[in-house]
């Protein structure tokens, strides 16, 4: 167990170094750098001090130094929690993360809770009442849910909410709460906005999860140990929940780990962009588009980190619930 953990953490570290290096290469590949472009842009807008100000950044982050030196500077600061500067926002990347990450985590958790709370009961129902009317309806709906791209769903929800219901659902806060300090009213405002992306995420997630749950459970229900459990005199309900669902849910634990953790940083990016949420997704996309190298690099490395944490958590959780799996 301990050696398993040490080994996994060791692999994760190697992986992180490789990913950070490769992403740094990719980010600095396009000709020119963000700085030159940005200076020109700001000067054309009449910002006289832009050149000298941004030139300082260039020196501080060693942008004129050779590539390897740049990388080394960035990564050695990175491990100390200094992720560099976002040239676009002219703020430390860490500050941006501090603003956006909590919202992203909240959204991801809400979405996951929604998804599981809907998917598991529906999946179980569909499998137990296979081919019933209810199963057919849920099956049809879930195929539609899987089939419709989530950004399209976001657009439709936007249209209905804004045009038909006259609701403000863009972003995560109303304008007057945007920069207000945290208060109960602000939390309420957040919840009023949060349900839209959470619901869209949940519909997409639920549809897939229902399919998986239904399939797994049908497989499990056909296993001899289910018949044996019934032959012991157990109630049908006990057989289903204690023996069948308990077995059928294991693969979902892996999905929970491997998909939910990375989804905190790069979940439904398109939905987040459409709804212009102040979360990580839009920040990441924007950083990639504008060659805001430190922001993009940081998010990319953090996504990798999440993927690895998720996989590790999934493995540990699976080993915990399934005695057949041994970690060594």
């Amino acid at each position: 167990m301990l050696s398993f953990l040490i080994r996994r953490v060791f692999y994760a570290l190697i992986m992180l170094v490789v990913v950070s290096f490769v992403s740094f290469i990719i980010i600095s590949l396009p000709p020119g750098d963000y700085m030159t472009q940005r200076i020109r842009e700001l000067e054309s807008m009449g910002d006289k001090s832009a050149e000298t100000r941004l030139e300082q950044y260039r020196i501080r982050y060693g942008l004129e130094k050779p590539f390897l030196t740049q990388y080394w500077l960035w990564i050695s600061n990175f491990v100390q929690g200094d992720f560099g500067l976002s040239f676009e926002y002219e703020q430390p990347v860490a500050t941006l993360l501090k603003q956006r990450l909590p919202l992203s985590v909240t959204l991801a958790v809400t979405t996951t809770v929604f998804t599981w709370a809907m998917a598991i009961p529906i999946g179980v129902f569909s499998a137990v009442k296979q081919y019933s009317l209810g199963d057919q309806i849920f099956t049809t709906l879930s195929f539609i849910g899987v089939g419709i791209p989530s950004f399209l769903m976001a657009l439709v929800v936007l249209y209905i909410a804004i045009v038909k219901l006259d609701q403000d659902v863009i972003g995560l806060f109303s304008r007057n709460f945007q920069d207000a300090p945290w208060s109960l009213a602000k939390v309420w405002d957040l919840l009023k906005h949060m349900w839209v992306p959470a619901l869209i995420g949940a519909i997409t997630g639920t549809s897939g999860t229902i399919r998986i749950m239904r399939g797994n459970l049908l497989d499990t229900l056909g296993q001899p140990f289910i018949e044996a459990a019934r032959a012991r005199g157990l109630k049908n309900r006990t057989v289903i929940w204690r023996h069948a669902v308990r077995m059928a849910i294991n693969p979902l634990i892996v999905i929970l780990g491997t998909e939910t953790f990375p989804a905190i940083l790069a979940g439904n990016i398109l939905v987040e962009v459409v709804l212009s949420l102040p979360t990580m997704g839009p920040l990441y996309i924007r950083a990639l588009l504008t060659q805001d190298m430190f922001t993009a690099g940081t998010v990319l490395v953090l996504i990798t980190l999440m993927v690895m944490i998720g996989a590790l958590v999934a493995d540990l959780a699976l080993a915990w619930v399934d005695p057949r799996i041994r970690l060594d």
Partner: protein
Amino acid sequence: MSEENRQPLVKVQDLHVEFDVRDGIVHAVDGASFTIYRGQTLGIIGESGCGKSITAKAIMKMVPKPGIMRGEITFFEKTSQNDGEATEEVRIDRLHPDSQRIRKIRGGNIGMIFQEPMSSLTPVFSAGFHIIEAAKLHRFVPVNTIGDTMTRNIKDKRGVTDDEAREIAVDMLRRVGLPNPESRVDSFPHQLSGGQRQRVMIAIALSAHPDLLIADEPTTALDVSIEAQILDLMRELQDTADMAIMFITHNLGVIAEIADEIVVMYMGKEVERANTIDLFENPQHPYTKSLLGSIPQIGEKRSELETIEGMVPSPFDLPQGCVFHPRCSEYMPGKCDKVYPEYDEVIEGHWVRCLLYDGCRPDTQEAQVIKESV
């Protein structure tokens, strides 16, 4: 036990189980009737697919979807009352499959062990968990109140506690011969061998002290030495537990060893029933004869095994008349393919479904005449 005072335990009458599948209707069980008596070991033998498992599941009211069941299944339950013992007839076929009544019988009065020991235990639960689960459903201990010595028969009963259930689990594992039961009780299925898992299954089934143990090919998936051990174990446990066994198999060697009486099934119905010795020494039905002919005898010189001619007919399209006629060596054209043979007691205690014995005993002249005319 003499023939007359045998007490019936489960009586199956004209049982039909049909599966409506895409290609038509499968008559998995097609009019089977037989009785299992208290304390006896009844062997059920027949080719793969002849409906043995489905018959067993019907007795437990566990016919799998989309099966439809018709016919009568009666369970004769012993109930203890103030003035001694009484028997109550429970019509299993009329019970709802998830009703409390059938769930008490299932696992309580009738235990079952299955063909696939490797996958009959839930992988995420320990061996002990399974036995504890069964014991908590079906084991009761008397509650002793002061001054109840006179009314011993109406003592209150309560379910067992967690600790008692665990003790039962360890004790059962010891009785089925699992080494180190105190530690094995916490073993997970994947840590046990096939034979050990089947022992655990037996322990689960017997933990409730059932009246009947249905063993559906319990040794088919095991190798021969383990098979012998499991059979020994079952015989041994039966001796101590006054329990009937319905032993299903397609292995003649196994059935000869364990059964008192044998029912031969073909295509969803029984074709012959006799006690084991009679059946082996004096088989009457052509199907039984060819079955027996298909096992090699030691010392006998044969170039090849005698196989039963022809294929098992399609379950969707059963032959007219006697269902065995396309494969029968004593087929009587014009009769066997037209007339449906009834089940007759041709010799004392020896039942056969064959037109050769149509209304007459096989040792009478008429039977000889019929035979010669073929």
